[in-house]
């Protein structure tokens, strides 16, 4: 005997994790869309006249986000201009399918699309980086570069705001990770629905209270076209465990996800506690707790032929760097301040943390299906996990580096 919809008495198609309600398809669509609308209006996420870049990876969250933003913008007349913004890391073969998905979404949802490449952003493709440094450490690059890519891309596009598809599960997971790491600074920031409201390029998360299950169900029932074999260059075991934990507690008590977010929100930090000082990278303007941000240190290393700079045990590299700098004098536009370099280096050895592309580590160890770097051999990755390896036989062209980010950017960018 089918269960009936709690609202209209038709036969129900899903049980909402947040409320336990059984709903039919139409009542679910309505509840889902209205809740996101309420999130957007309650938190004043959008302002008439703004251009909003939707970070689009071709995955489920950003695909549903693009669909919903378009729908609500039309339905409620938000009056914002929406743009899809995708980042192409420059990994041969790997982005093809997901970028194809984003291109289809562009047509399906009638939204402009801008694909911005690592080459435009950093002067290096991931392929070229892997070629330089080998696969052992590419995750560090991947993680750091990815975290900044969307912000840098949005700055280049000149949009007012970024919207990302982070959902309630993602945020709960991040809360747990920050608790386990004792990272009080990030713990404060990670539950914020918008970040960077004071002068920096703001980011907002319209799915902050939206359960992953509902996003996936919505995409399934609406037949939305998304891509799910995300190639994870760098599996992050730590986030994988946090994710599994969240899913386990959700199974027992579905409200746990929202409860964890609320716990994160209600934590207050005593005034006496010294919070990490948020500065700005003196080279690129990205928010950084060091004088020079991680990405800039790594780029410096790549450009100077010391690709291992900024990753792992770096004493040797640093000495080489010091020698180089002293030979050239200090005005070569490179890292002028060894102290800031030191402090930047000291914080880089924490493995990869791919905030927006994280997925279950083990689901992705089968990288052959998704990443062509796996063609020839396997090697160990940062977490000592088996990891797809680079074919290493392509010609690596070292391009003259583009220097857009060498000049200072006035606007601050948020470290997410």
């Amino acid at each position, binding site marked *: 005997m*089918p*269960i009936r919809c709690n609202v209209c008495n038709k*036969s*129900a*198609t*899903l*049980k909402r994790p947040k409320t336990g309600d*059984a709903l039919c398809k139409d009542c679910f669509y309505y509840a889902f869309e209205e809740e996101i609308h309420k999130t957007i209006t309650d938190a004043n996420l959008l302002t008439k006249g703004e251009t909003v870049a939707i970070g689009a*990876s071709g*995955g*489920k*969250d*950003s*695909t549903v986000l693009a669909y919903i933003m378009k729908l609500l913008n039309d339905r409620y007349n938000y009056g914002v201009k929406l743009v899809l913004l995708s980042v192409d890391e420059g990994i041969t073969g790997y982005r093809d399918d997901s970028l194809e998905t984003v291109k289809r979404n562009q047509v399906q949802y009638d939204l402009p699309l801008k694909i911005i490449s690592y080459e435009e952003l950093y002067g290096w493709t991931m392929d070229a980086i892997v070629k330089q440094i080998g696969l052992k450490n590419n995750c560090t690059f991947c993680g750091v570069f990815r975290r900044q890519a969307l912000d840098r891309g949005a700055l280049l596009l000149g949009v007012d705001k970024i919207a990302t*598809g982070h*959902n309630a*599960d993602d945020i709960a997971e991040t809360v747990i990770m920050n608790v386990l790491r004792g990272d009080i600074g990030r713990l404060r920031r990670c539950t914020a629905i918008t970040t960077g409201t004071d002068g920096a390029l703001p980011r907002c998360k319209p799915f902050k209270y939206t359960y*992953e*299950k509902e*996003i*996936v*169900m919505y995409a*399934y*029932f609406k037949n939305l076209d*998304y891509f*799910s*074999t*995300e190639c*994870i260059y760098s599996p992050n075991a730590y986030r994988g465990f946090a*994710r*599994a934990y969240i*899913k*386990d507690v*959700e*199974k027992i008590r579905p409200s746990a996800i929202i409860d964890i977010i609320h716990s994160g929100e209600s934590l207050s930090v005593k005034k006496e506690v010294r919070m990490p000082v948020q500065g700005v990278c003196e080279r690129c303007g990205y928010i950084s707790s060091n004088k020079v941000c991680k990405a800039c240190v790594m780029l410096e290393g790549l450009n100077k032929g010391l690709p291992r700079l900024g990753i792992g045990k770096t004493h040797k590299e640093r000495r080489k760097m010091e020698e180089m700098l002293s030979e050239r004098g200090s005005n070569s536009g490179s890292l002028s301040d060894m102290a800031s370099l030191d402090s930047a280096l000291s914080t880089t050895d924490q493995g990869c943390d791919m905030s*927006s*592309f*994280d*997925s*279950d580590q*083990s*689901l992705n160890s*089968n990288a052959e*299906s998704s990443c062509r770097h796996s063609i020839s051999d396997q090697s160990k990755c940062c977490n000592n996990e088996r990891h797809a390896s680079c074919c290493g036989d392509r010609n690596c062209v070292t391009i003259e580096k583009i220097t857009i980010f060498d000049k200072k950017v006035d606007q601050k960018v948020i470290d997410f």
Partner: protein
Amino acid sequence: MYFSGGAELLFDKKKKHDVNLPAKETPWTIKDLLPWMKDNMLKERPELFIQGETVRPGILVLINDADWELMGELDYSIQNKDKIVFISTLHGG
């Protein structure tokens, strides 16, 4: 049976499978089906699909396009021509 969201990677990378279950004295339930899938269909890393006697949390199950949580979950008795869908939510988005 249909697999998506990344779950298909564990099942021969195929999204659609037509499955004929062997005759059995008692009706097939999802609870019987899962270990049978593990033995007969699952190609790799069963721990990503099965946890204990049920599916791993984070894998959504739909029976004839309705959430299995409304259908009795493991106790549902499978009928001829049922459409069963497994969607992984564990992949990046």
